[in-house]
Every structure is written in structure tokens, then in C-alpha cells.
């Protein structure tokens, strides 16, 4: 297992290199000049040229890339062109907010989807099954940014229950929840729809397996059959889906952070792209890539807990 983890960590290096090359290319191929953007349209050509030189934009792309990578290897993501702040600091200030939002969104997904999926499989073709499936398809067909706007309109503007946007500085308080609930739900609902359907279909498949009949034949009771025998098998496809969903949750959070003015790295990313603040954009994309890679590693390790047939060595 340790060997496996080390190998996976080594494989991350080329993947991350590829990601950084791609993002550098994308940034430099897109139109717009950060120096011009920083100084404004009225600034004279000489000032712009000076700034370009100061921040190294007069160098060829590959030189800038190598210098950036050299910095990253020493743990330095550079400085913002716009504010002059270190990128490390800007990201570290906002990363907790993004992680908080994503983790709570995933938690909401599980809390909604697992019980609904199991119930609709066990009570197939009853009103509970139909209800869960309507619920699932409803959320599934709703774009999260639109859902976010609707939630703000309903709960913040009309009912005045929750703040319109922002984040509380506290944790595990009512205030914390009032800020977090809407954006987390906006991200999680769609995932929950997907996971409900997957849970239902894999439970249905498993319930018809012979070992489930064996379990029933032992007289251990219907609950034990579902929770001990069926659920543990259903967790295998569910873990796979969750692994695939983590990038979606993160990309969904970028939009939602923007809609809810959530002070995370997603919103910073959007702002930085529009300001052509290249070092910040590069830094954030790198952080996202690292999060996704680690999350998938954790899911793959969790896999061995559910399926004894899978061993890594």
C-alpha cells in the first residue's frame, strides 16, 4: 500500500507539469495585456512598456514558464501583477473558504442521496421510489448558478432568512450555517440528483444477487440484509462516482462562489482572469489540480476498504 501511494505521488509530477504547461499556453494565447489592464486604457505606451519589463512580460513565454516553475519548486507562486501581494498569501487566505464550501457541498450530497437512493431501490415502484426519482431528476436538470440565483431570490430577498452573500468568520454556528447553506446546497443538489440515481440502480442490481438471497435465508432480518450485505457492495460504484465528481464540485464552486460573493479561490480566479493577473491565475489552477489529484488518491485508497478484491501493491 505504501509503495502504491508513493508511486501515485510520483505519477502526479508529470500530470502537474502538463497542467502548468497547458495553463501557461492558454493564458498567453488569450488576448489582452496585463500591463495595459493594470494601468488602464489611457496610460502612455512608455509606462506600459516599463511595467511589462518590470514584471518580466518582455521575456519569451518559455523563459517565463521556467522561471515560474523554478519558483513553484521553492514554494513560491510569485506576486500579483495587480496588487503586488504574494500569490501564496492570497491563496492561503481564501483556500479555507473554498474547502469549507466544497466539503459541505459533498456532505449534503451524501446526506440527501444515499437514503433516497436506498429507499427507492428497496421500495421499488412505490410512491417513495417515484418521489425520489422525480426529486433526483428535478435537481439534476437545474444548472447550479441558476439554482443559486433562485435560492438567493427566495430565501434572502423574499423571505429574508439568509444573508444574500458573503461568509461568516465563525464555524458550526447558526450564522455560519446561514451563510453556507445556500451556496453549498446550490453546488450539492445537482450532485445529489446524480448520486441518488446511481445509488438506486446499483442497489437494485445488488438486491437481485444470489448472496443477498443467501443472507435473507439466514434469517438475519431485512435491515441487516440491506445495511450489512447490500450497502457495502453498493459503496463500490458510489466511491467511483464520488471520485469522478470531485472536479465537478470544484468547478461548480467557482461559479457559485462568484454568485454568492463567497471569498474563496474560485471567486479570486474569476476576478484574476478578468484583470489578466496571470501569476494568480496560474497559482490557483495549480492548487485546484493538486486538490483533485489528492482527492482521487484518497478515493482510490478508500476503495480498498469497500472491496477486498482490490489490492494495490
Amino acid at each position, binding site marked *: 500500500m505504501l509503495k502504491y501511494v508513493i508511486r501515485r505521488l510520483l505519477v502526479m509530477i508529470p500530470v502537474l507539469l502538463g497542467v502548468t504547461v497547458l495553463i501557461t499556453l492558454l493564458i498567453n494565447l488569450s488576448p489582452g495585456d496585463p500591463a495595459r489592464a493594470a494601468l488602464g486604457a489611457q496610460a502612455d505606451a512608455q509606462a506600459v512598456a516599463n511595467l511589462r519589463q518590470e514584471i518580466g512580460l518582455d521575456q519569451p513565454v518559455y523563459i517565463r514558464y521556467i522561471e515560474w516553475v523554478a519558483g513553484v519548486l521553492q514554494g513560491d507562486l510569485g506576486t500579483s501583477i495587480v496588487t503586488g501581494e504574494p500569490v501564496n498569501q492570497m491563496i492561503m487566505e481564501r483556500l479555507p473558504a473554498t474547502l469549507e464550501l466544497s466539503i459541505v457541498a459533498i456532505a449534503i450530497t451524501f446526506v440527501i442521496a444515499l437514503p433516497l437512493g436506498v429507499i427507492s431501490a428497496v421500495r421499488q415502484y412505490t410512491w417513495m421510489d417515484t418521489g425520489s426519482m422525480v426529486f433526483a431528476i428535478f435537481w439534476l436538470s437545474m444548472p447550479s448558478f441558476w439554482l443559486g440565483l433562485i435560492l438567493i431570490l427566495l430565501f434572502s430577498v423574499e423571505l429574508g432568512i439568509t444573508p444574500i452573500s458573503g461568509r461568516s468568520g465563525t464555524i458550526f454556528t447558526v450564522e455560519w450555517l446561514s451563510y453556507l447553506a445556500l451556496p453549498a446546497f446550490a453546488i450539492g443538489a445537482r450532485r445529489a440528483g446524480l448520486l441518488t440515481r446511481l445509488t438506486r440502480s446499483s442497489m437494485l442490481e445488488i438486491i*437481485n*444477487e*444470489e*448472496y443477498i*438471497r*443467501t*443472507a*435473507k*435465508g*439466514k*434469517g*438475519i*432480518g*431485512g435491515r*441487516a440484509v440491506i445495511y*450489512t*450485505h447490500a450497502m*457495502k*457492495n453498493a459503496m*463500490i460504484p458510489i466511491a467511483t462516482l464520488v471520485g469522478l465528481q470531485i472536479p465537478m464540485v470544484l468547478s461548480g464552486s467557482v461559479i457559485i462562489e462568484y454568485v454568492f460573493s463567497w471569498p474563496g479561490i474560485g471567486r479570486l480566479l474569476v476576478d484574476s482572469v478578468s484583470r489578466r493577473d496571470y501569476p494568480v491565475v496560474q497559482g490557483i489552477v495549480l492548487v485546484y489540480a493538486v486538490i483533485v489529484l489528492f482527492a482521487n488518491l484518497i478515493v482510490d485508497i478508500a476503495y480498498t476498504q*469497500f*472491496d*477486498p*478484491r482490490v489490492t494495490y501493491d
Partner: protein
Amino acid sequence: MTEPLLAIDDLNVRFRTEDEPVYALNGVDITIEHNEVMGIIGESGCGKSVTALSVLQLLQSPPAEIIGGEIRYKGENLLERSDSEMDEIRGNEISMIYQDPMKALNPVLTIGQQVTEPLLAHRDVTKDEAIDEAIEMLRACGLADAERLVDEYPHSLSGGMRQRVMIAMGLITKPDLLIADEPTTALDVTTQAKILDLLEDISDEFDMSIMYISHNLATVSEVADRITVMYAGTVAERCTMNELFELPLHPYTRKLIESIPKLDTVHERLPAIEGSVPTFNEPPSGCPFASRCPQYIGSACDEVVPQAQPPGEAYDVEAEHTVACHLYTDASSEKPPWTTEEQTHDSAY
């Protein structure tokens, strides 16, 4: 006579499929006495598994419906029990082992977890005590390495070992009845013989009855005391194991015996009965074997469902020997069995 341990009485089971209903069991009668091994034989598709699963009410419903009959266990009709009331019987007084041990064990739970489950559900024991008993029972079932195996998962075991695990799991609560549904069919020949030996041993050693289901007459004959021959959801013949080979009465039984491959003859192809088991979309209106029967005697076979009964005084058989065939009923009185020209070659028995 005292009440048998299990009495299946006129059992009728129907499957509701998307197009037409399938009448899988059409009046099955089987009795199993205390400490007896009852063999159930018949080609595949004859309703053996449906019968076995009905006893523990393990048929998926829908599509299965039990539309008639009784299953009396120690005198009580099990069909009147609710699902949760059945849990008191399942794995406790009646255990079942299945055809394919590869599929019948849960791949994500350890052998120890699975074998101890019936004990934990039905007896007042701690987990440690249950594991100790499981190890002991696995050893008794021929798994010497039991202590290590309880922590293993099914995928690391061979088919034969898994079937031993299944048997240990069935026996751990010392049930009164073990239902073994083709326990050797999915195994290779040498393993088959070993599992069969094990079942023979435990039937002697434990105070229990076994319902031993197989489509292979040769294996059943090694373990069974009495035998029930099933055909297309009905019982064709019922007798002691000895009489089955000495005096088989039903043409289907005779065909089954003929189709056992003999060691001293060279077969061009394995002997088998021509045709296949019919499925019924409505209850059968005559003898279900009529279309394949070498001793078909006319309209009675098509129009009257033969009832199980003793063959009559002309036959020197034990009192309990019954057969459901018009050769032995009044319907055939004008044409006695075995005497017509074209039938003589079939009457070698």
C-alpha cells in the same frame, strides 16, 4: 402415523412475467421424515429450486406467487407466517445451501462474518464465542485451515472450499432440515465427490433431515434414503432409493435411469432424453410428460392429469411407492402397460 418433519402439500407456484404467466409448480407433494435424506431429482427447469425456495419463502415476489397449497413444518403451515416470522425459521431450523458457491457468498464480507451470522441472529452468543464455533464447524466441514480462513474473503477460496463454507454456515445453528439445492453441480468432478462424502458424513453425524436436490441421479443415489422424481412442476414418482433402480414405474423415471452414463459401455454421445421440459402458461390439462413419453397411450394422457397413487396390486412394491401415470390408472385398463409390440424394448426393467 406421526406428522413428518416437512410436508409440502399440493403446492402451486406461478410467475407473473411481462407477457404470459408461467405455472412453475402444479401441485407438488413432498414429505420429509425426521432424520431422512430425501432426494429430489428432475431435469433442469422441473421446478426443484422453486420448490426449495418456497419452503423458506425466498422467491422474489413479484414475479413469484404461491397460489395454492400448504408447506407444513412440524405441523405448522409456514405459508401463514409473515416475512419477519419466517426469519425465526430461516437459518435457524431450516438452512439452505445453493448451487453456485461462487455467487452465493457475499464478496465483501469475511468468511467469519458470514458463517457466524446465523448464530448471532438466532442464539444468545457473543461475537468471540460465535467465531470459535464457526472455526470448529469449518473444521468439521473439512477446512483444516479454519482459523486463518475466518479472516479471508470468498474470492481467495476455491469453489470446493466455498461450498464447504456454505455447508458450515448452514449447519452452524444445528438445523432440523438442510435444503441442499444442487450443491455439487457447479463443482468439478473430484470436488463433487468430496462434497458428496461430506454431506453423507454430516447426515449420519447430525440429527437432521436433508432435502437433497440434483439433476444427476448418480449423485442423489449415493446420499438419499427416499427419492421424489419431479417433472415440469409435478411429482412423477416417489419411492425408496432401492426401489427406484429395481422397480421404476414412471416412463420418465425409466428414461432418467437409462440416461445415466454407464462406465462399461462406450457412448457416442452422452445419453439424454429427447425433447425438453415444457413450460406452462396455464395449468396443465393432462400429463405434462405426454409429449415426450415413449409409452403414450392416447387421449387420457392429454386430457386427464394423472394423480399420484400406488400402482396397484399387479406390482410388488412398497406401500409408499406412488406414481402419477395413466399406465397405472383405470384410464389404461383396456391397454395394460409394457405389453404392446412397440413397447417391449422399453420394458427391460
